[in-house]
């Protein structure tokens, strides 16, 4: 990463198929009058990026960011989780040379001056952006606030950190937590990167913050100016700065605000719906139709077989014992994939199933009820389920299907 000492850096993180989002993001920041350096961490292999060059922002491959345990992280994290991790990592590290680093999700569309955000970020060690700025009204007010309590008081799509000790401590802690606990599990207190942010105001010291809504200490709280996934619903009257987070927006379906909510529709948005059309047009001009087809370069083993989510989770759950496999993407004798397809020797009804399918079986009570002895008398039925339904339900490549014969003996 080219380092500019001092000043503000604005950054985002994307997979290559989100390139058009980053272009629109960068254009909107420039159009709002900001000349600060813009960075996009691209969570792809350098080899897949070639000589990718963007006129409005510097694209930085994740391999160049010094992320600890990079190979492991690129294997255990699917695309979204990897970009979330990248967001908490090097681009936000004030130590990279900037006085203030502002992270904005690539689906943030800057509509107006960000001066208030820059000002707030510069005045605080950590600046967070709440999903909601005031109590909700209406008959569903409690239900909607409970949704926020499950997903996080603060929006992980807009976080700023300044070059202060508390900022560094925050990033060390956040990155550490995301390295091991970065997934969607609201029942366990997790919502990717986001729920962790709720702890930040309790953890980190004040550092000369000014009094404004909700701020009496070191964690600046910046008002999200407009709709976040349609959840905030309307622009805050006290918000000077303007940005619109279009999380979950699919330009192929501009009639839907976000895949994350069905509550807000084009009709309920009123004139704001025109924003969706404009955003979809901007994405189209930025080449989204082409970019969206770019494959994720950490999507497959080196033999080309796509890595199913269950394989990533199984590897993650192995913890540091997974180190014995070396590069988990590599295939060959003693590799992770070989182990994954070998027979499970853990006690229980699924003993003898390939470990991949044992993991699927163990997490599904319905399968346990339907196939009480999946490696024995029910093996044929279980194999039929794998081929007829299991592959599709768990997005597993047919090359990883099990057959009716005995599994490979335990490795």
């Amino acid at each position: 990463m080219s380092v500019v000492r001092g000043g503000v850096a604005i950054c985002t993180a994307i997979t290559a198929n989100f390139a058009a989002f980053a272009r629109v993001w960068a254009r909107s920041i420039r159009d709002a009058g900001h000349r600060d350096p813009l960075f996009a961490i691209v969570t792809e292999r350098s080899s897949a990026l070639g000589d990718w060059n963007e006129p409005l922002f510097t694209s930085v491959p994740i391999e160049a960011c010094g992320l600890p345990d990079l190979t492991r992280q690129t294997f255990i994290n699917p695309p979204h989780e990897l970009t979330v991790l990248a967001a908490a990592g090097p681009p936000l590290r004030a130590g990279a040379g900037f006085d203030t680093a502002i992270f904005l999700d690539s689906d943030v569309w800057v509509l107006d001056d960000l001066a208030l955000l820059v000002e707030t970020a510069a005045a605080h060690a950590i600046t967070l952006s709440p999903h909601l700025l005031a109590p909700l009204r209406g008959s569903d007010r409690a239900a909607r606030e409970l949704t926020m309590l499950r997903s996080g008081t603060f929006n992980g799509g807009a976080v700023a950190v300044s070059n202060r000790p508390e900022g560094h401590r925050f990033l060390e802690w956040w990155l550490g937590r995301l390295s091991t606990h970065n997934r969607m599990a609201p029942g366990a207190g997790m919502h990717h990167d986001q729920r962790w942010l709720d702890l930040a105001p309790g953890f980190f010291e004040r550092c000369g913050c000014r009094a404004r809504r909700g701020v009496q200490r070191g964690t600046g709280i910046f008002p999200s100016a407009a709709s976040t996934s349609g959840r905030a619903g309307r622009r805050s009257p006290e918000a000077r700065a303007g940005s619109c987070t279009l999380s979950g927006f699919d330009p192929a379906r501009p009639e839907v605000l976000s895949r994350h909510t069905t509550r807000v529709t084009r009709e309920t948005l009123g004139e704001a719906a025109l924003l969706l059309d404009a955003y979809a047009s901007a994405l189209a001009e930025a080449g989204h139709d082409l970019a969206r087809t770019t494959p994720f370069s950490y999507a497959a083993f080196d033999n080309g077989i796509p890595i199913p989510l269950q394989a990533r989770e199984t590897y993650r759950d192995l913890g540091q014992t997974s180190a014995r496999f070396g590069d988990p993407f590599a295939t060959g004798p003693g590799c992770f994939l070989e182990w994954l397809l070998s027979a499970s020797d853990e006690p229980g009804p699924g003993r003898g199933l390939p470990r991949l399918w044992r993991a699927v079986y163990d997490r599904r009570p319905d399968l346990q009820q339907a196939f009480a002895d999946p490696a024995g008398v029910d093996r044929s039925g279980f194999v039929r389920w794998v081929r007829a339904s299991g592959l599709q339900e768990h997005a597993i490549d047919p090359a990883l299907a099990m057959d009716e014969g005995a599994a490979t003996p335990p490795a």
Partner: protein
Amino acid sequence: MPACAACTIVSGNRLSYARVLARSFRACHQDIPFFVLLADEPVAAVDPAAEPFTLVTLADLDVPDLPRLRFHHPQQPFSYACTPWLIEWLHARGVDRVVYFKQETLILDDVSGLFDRLATSPIVVTPHLPQPLGADGAERELNILLSGVYNVGVLGVARHASAREFLTWWADRLRYDCRHAVEAGLHFEQRWVDLAIAYFDGVHVERDPAYNVGHWSLPERAVTRAADGRVQVDGRPCRVFRFSGYRPEEGDRMTTYNARLPWEGLGVVRELVRGFREALEHDGYWETREWPYAYERFDNGVRVAETARQIYRTQGDAVARFGDPLSTGGSGSFWRWLHSHPPESDLSRFWKAIYDSRPDLQGAFPDTRGDGARAFMTWARHSGLAEHQVPEAMLTGSDR
């Protein structure tokens, strides 16, 4: 009314906790009054003039639809749901700065800092954890995220417009949602306060651990005694110690909420726990714990099952027609309605609600009319009563 006041809330059978807390507060602050809201009916055996606090009754507060609120929640959650009402009541009587302590608390030293902070910040909250745990602390931090970043066992609220907004909002949410349902984002009254920092002006996060030491933070805190006998935390005066989850019946056990706290390793904390138990016993723990909670039963003596409370909560304002839900007399009572049959089933509304909540029962008993309903009620008698902790009287709708 004075500028400052402290307070807590108890039901009658927890009165000894209020006595111990009030005495410990008065030992440090004789000039600041301590108020106790009795979230229960007045107890004849209690002489308010003889108590070490000023007693406030539910009748003193201006809680709209009180019979509904006290039916929404069982004993402890109801007392939690009363918190904003008590603080607001004190504000309305001219108290500028109120610090609320949850009942299972000892004040060990001067807490003026909390009152002082309220002069500049209308809302003061204390986090469970004032700093990140170590690299292996993720699971404990996740537990905190499920129960609430801030511990509302110590909460300061000043008489201020922003604080009034906070209390109004909090009371509204607690009317229906003061339950333990972490999968839904709820942990009684506490999780809601995670939103307060974003919603309201002037929220101060008091990170000095001396103001709220409890089982959740003990692994990181060094609790010791100074040469003069004062309790210290991390070498500084320990001001507020919380006994959340402590039960005298459990003997030498710090809390029922954390099995990983070994009694042997607790050092000075063991002395505090034993001292707390002795104080509770001195203040009538074994006697008062037997006092019945007034809102635990219908007026026919049948205990209110949680399912009945759930059904009542989901009816919204339609329950107004029932009047006091604890009253069973008359054909228009909630009790009668609960035992009536919905048009589509021969099960009572009470048992139909349980049926509707359980796909396994729907599979086992596809028909809730005629023989199907009778078969279901056989299950209800043999298993349902125990599984849902339902009094037997709910089988027939008869009085006890």
